[in-house]
């Protein structure tokens, strides 16, 4: 028992201070990019007024090199022992803003127990309706006066939708993890997961429209690289 505890401790220390590498990679899309029309927000004049630039639909955001934004990349499991034993939920707060009647960011990951602040930067009523299957569903109104509210999720869950019933076009996705090894791709489709101890892992890339892909990954002292390429999903 004790030995196990000490062992875990050592691993933990190593993970945090010693040999650990970054996992990097880029997600690209292979195929014809869709043409997307801007969002129609006529239903709420406030939204129209608040948007500086015309917001576009976000279900597939590509850069000129077909790098895919808003892909949630995370370590799904470890093949070389437990890595998700015990992580304290981070002190820093995750943010989900409602700005110009869209959610910023569109995709995010949080840890179990991590505080998620939902902000209302618009001067209008939003309701924040989270649709998790494992965690507790909630649906709260945020009138223009209510600028911020906080929530936490206490169970691990695959990405689920968060939406606003008042503004039906608004949608965001939140994944809940018990470890800190996840990242969302940036505009160019790149991501970095840092602090991973050397070992073998399974990494997964999840996209709201394109589905998900997994890959086996070996992390050594210098980290590792894992790219994914998505294609257009087949019509059902």
């Amino acid at each position: 028992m004790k030995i196990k505890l000490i062992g875990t401790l050592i691993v933990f220390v190593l993970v945090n201070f010693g040999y650990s590498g970054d996992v990097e990679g880029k997600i690209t899309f292979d195929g014809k990019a869709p043409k997307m029309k801007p969002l129609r927000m006529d239903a709420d004049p406030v939204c129209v007024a608040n948007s500086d630039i015309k917001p576009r639909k976000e279900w597939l955001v590509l850069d000129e090199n077909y790098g895919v934004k808003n892909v949630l990349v995370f370590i799904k499991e470890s093949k070389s022992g437990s890595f998700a034993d015990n992580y304290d939920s981070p002190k820093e707060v995750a943010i989900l803003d409602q700005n110009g009647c869209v959610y910023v960011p569109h995709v995010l990951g949080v840890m179990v127990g991590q505080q998620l602040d939902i902000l209302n930067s618009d001067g209008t009523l939003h309701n924040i309706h989270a649709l998790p299957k494992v965690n507790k569903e909630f649906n709260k109104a945020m009138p223009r006066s209510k600028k911020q509210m906080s929530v936490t999720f206490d169970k691990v869950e695959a990405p689920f939708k968060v939406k606003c019933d008042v503004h039906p076009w608004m949608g965001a996705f939140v994944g809940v993890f018990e470890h800190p090894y996840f990242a969302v791709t940036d505009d160019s489709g790149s991501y970095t997961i840092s602090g991973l101890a050397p070992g073998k892992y399974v990494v997964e890339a999840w996209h709201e429209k394109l589905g998900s892909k997994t890959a086996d990954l070996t992390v050594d002292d210098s980290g590792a690289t894992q790219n994914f390429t998505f294609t257009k999903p087949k019509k059902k």
Partner: protein
Amino acid sequence: MSESQERHYNILKLNRLFAISTFIFTAVWLLVFVDDYQRPWKTYQKEFRKLEIEKVRSDLNDLSVQLENNPDYNRLTEKLLSAEKRLDSRRDELDKINVELETLNTELYRNNQLYQFSKADLDVLKYDYEKSQFGHDKSSDLKKKYFALNDIVNKYFLIREKSEIRIDKKKKVQQEITKVIGRMKGSLISMTREKNLVERKLSKVDPEAMSFANKVGNVVRDLPVLDFIDPYYEVKQVVINDLEEDLVYMGMPKVDRCVTCHLGIDKKGFEDVPQPYTTHPKLDLMVGPSSSHPISEFGCTSCHAGRGRGTGFNSSSHSPNDETTAHRWEEEHGWEPMHHWENPMFPKRYTEAGCFKCHSGNMPLKEAETLSLGLSVFEKSGCYACHNVTRWNDAPKPGPSLYKLASKTSKDWTYKWIMDPSSFRHNTWMPHFFKKGNNSSPDDIKKTEQEVLAMTEYLFSKSESYEITSVNNSGDYDRGRLLVNSLGCKGCHQIQPNPDPDYDPTIQALRTEQGPNLISLGSKVNEDWLVSWLKNPYSYHEETKMPDLRVSDQEAMDIATYLLADKNNAFDSMNTAQVNDDALNEISADFLSQLLRKSQVNEKISNMTTKEKLIYSGEKLIGYYGCYSCHNIAGFEDRKPIGIALNIEGSKLISKFDFGFWHDEIPHTKWDWLYNKINKPEIFDLIPNEEGSVTVKELNPLEKSRMPHFGLTDKEINGLVTLIMGLVKDEIPASKLPEKTPEYLAETHGERFVHTNNCLGCHKIDEDGGAIWASTAVWLEEIAGPENSEDISLVQSFSPPLLNTQGKKVQPDWLLNWFQNISMIRPHLQVRMPSYDFTHEEWNSVISYFQSKDGLSLKYENPHNFSKATNSYKAGEKIQEEGACINCHFYGEMKPRQDALTWAPNLVLTKKRLRPEWLIDWFNNPQTVMPGTKMPSPYIPVDEPVSDVKEYWGNEVASFVGDTTGMLYGLIDWMWGLEGKEDISSIVKEHLDNEGYGFISDDEDDEW
């Protein structure tokens, strides 16, 4: 020597023989001891003890770790240490007090004795004195003595009291010194109580945790012969005095010894260990001491059946769930079926049969899926129509009425349908009477054809006329399709042209089979009939379960056009047989000869026309096959059902089940018999051959098994078998039955009403039901694209409402009115609540069901009072404004700001419709009341600083800061004050016609 002559045997040989026989005898006796000592259950108990030791050890370890990590505990121990240290400084004082206390106690003992003895003397004297009084011997001497002694006693009493007081004083000082420590110890003990309990338990089971003496005792108590005193390993049993083991004409209290081996059954933590140690899988419902069926009250065999007194694997009459298990048991336990016990344990798949004897009033039975499915299938298949079961005495006939058959369909269709229903509708509930194993020879089929012709002829000849209102509009196919998907038809009907290979019968799946699968209607009914039927089903068949959906003429035409477009060509091209007089004569003769002599029969037949013969034998055949049991047929109104009653089928003795020639193929159990009977009803008319084929017995036409084929799946049959096995004659004492409170009755009655009328085909109650959602999604996909139809919350918003908390939610008189006169609530809804022709009483039973479910009772309620002048009202108004309820809700004629997509009920209706009490719960957390609702919890600034609220929300709201209910009541006040138009249907219609729903879709206009 004369001596040797008097001897016959060689004594040494005899000695040897004696030695051998004695040796054998001793060995046999040892064997007897071993046999008696080595009871099979002991092995299990020993094994379980190991498991338990392991578990208790790990529990103890967990608790220790928990304690070590408990900061309170650590703090307290530290405090205790320091307090003890502090106490050390006063140790001398304490020691001194202790010494003094000791002396004082000695003194008290002495003084007490002095007092007690003198008192005893006094009592004696008192009696002597009183006796002397009685005998008029007024000896003053005694009197004097008595009073003198009395004084002495009083003196001693005082002395004793003084000692006591001194002791008390000292003790107080002592307590004061140790008080702190005492308190700490107290709280420490309470913290470690659980751990101590576990520790004590461990010391009882784990020899390693025992003292030496206990270790020896632990061994000795289980030694042979000595083990009758207080063994660790012993037969454990539950005795239930008011549940009786049926011993024919008398009962004995149930004795269940199952726990002798199933040791972990009532203990948490053995979920994953193998049998027989496994924890009961539903410990919260069964067995557990706090469950509704604690083992001490219900035992095991009262539900599972079996031979409770048995302590061996066989003698407790286990039943394997499948053949693999049976083989494994044979190998591991030498299992063989226990003959000589009428109620063998139910195999796992039929376990729920045990629920039914007490819970026969419920439908469905939560947590008893198989049984509930069985109940559903029993009703759907119409088993009760032929086989009387009391529970369904008042149930209407399961099939459609045939009184006005001629108006609906043709003879041709009827003939083919009776002949082979599934060739028309693959998943019909109409069973197959023909082309079964016992009537499929070419001769049989020839006869069958004439039989069906005759029955068809009879039905049409007796058919009444039905006035069809013909409609002249022409229908639109696409509109019809949309209507079928959106109006709510698919809450009860499917349109499923092909069999679904993954079909999984569940109660939910059966809900969409409340009505027939609406395929190939073009081959069956005519347009006029269908339109009339849609417009008013009751006019065709009063008892029909099909409700009135208030469709307009145009809608009816559209739907009819859509439904009639589908035809079954293969079915249409099938041939109808020609009337064959010879065969018909034979059929008629079979029936006639039951009444007449042979010669009379021939004479009679020769005098009948073909048509007469058809109608005569048609009537007889309908009676013979029992068609009238399921359908209303003219001329059969008072007939009794044809099947045997099943009321106590589960209690019927196994010897009454005739296995025919299948004794080697079918295991000799009631459930296997029932399974095979339902699966292949004519099976016992057949003779199995060695190669697996069958031959039909030599039977007269009227001797053959008539029970038809239902084409049920395994799962459905198992459900039926479970139900039938549960139909027993056991008398259950009231103490074991659910208490028949008015609430319970209202609930069970309501549940059954809800089930019978398939309310859950459309509605969801507590996560159950809502079969129609799939159809809503289909409609959504068609009008708004797949990304919308995949959005389950959107589907929910277009589906019939959840009926959670319905009792608490609505005002009962409003609900009653609404039921009888349906009107719009959610403005954007396409699906329609049908108009049923239920009586007041029936509606009331539904309402009282909702109410009982929520712990309410139908009673007068004070109306909600409010005044527009109050702070409350004004605060409500402000909250409403900030909350922008108008975004989605209608305020009378005032349309919501948002598109129709997000529309919500007219708030003007609220004051008549909803109960304020419920609204508070609703506002507080809509999700817990109606999971998935798009209604957000209105934001109220209840915990913001008063100054901020004043500034932003105004004084009225600010006056309620910190008072959630107050603010919400404000909202309610405001709503009660809202005036406006109640019926907004025309506004809605106009809006939808012009602007649509305003769906947001991705792919629709994005080319990809």
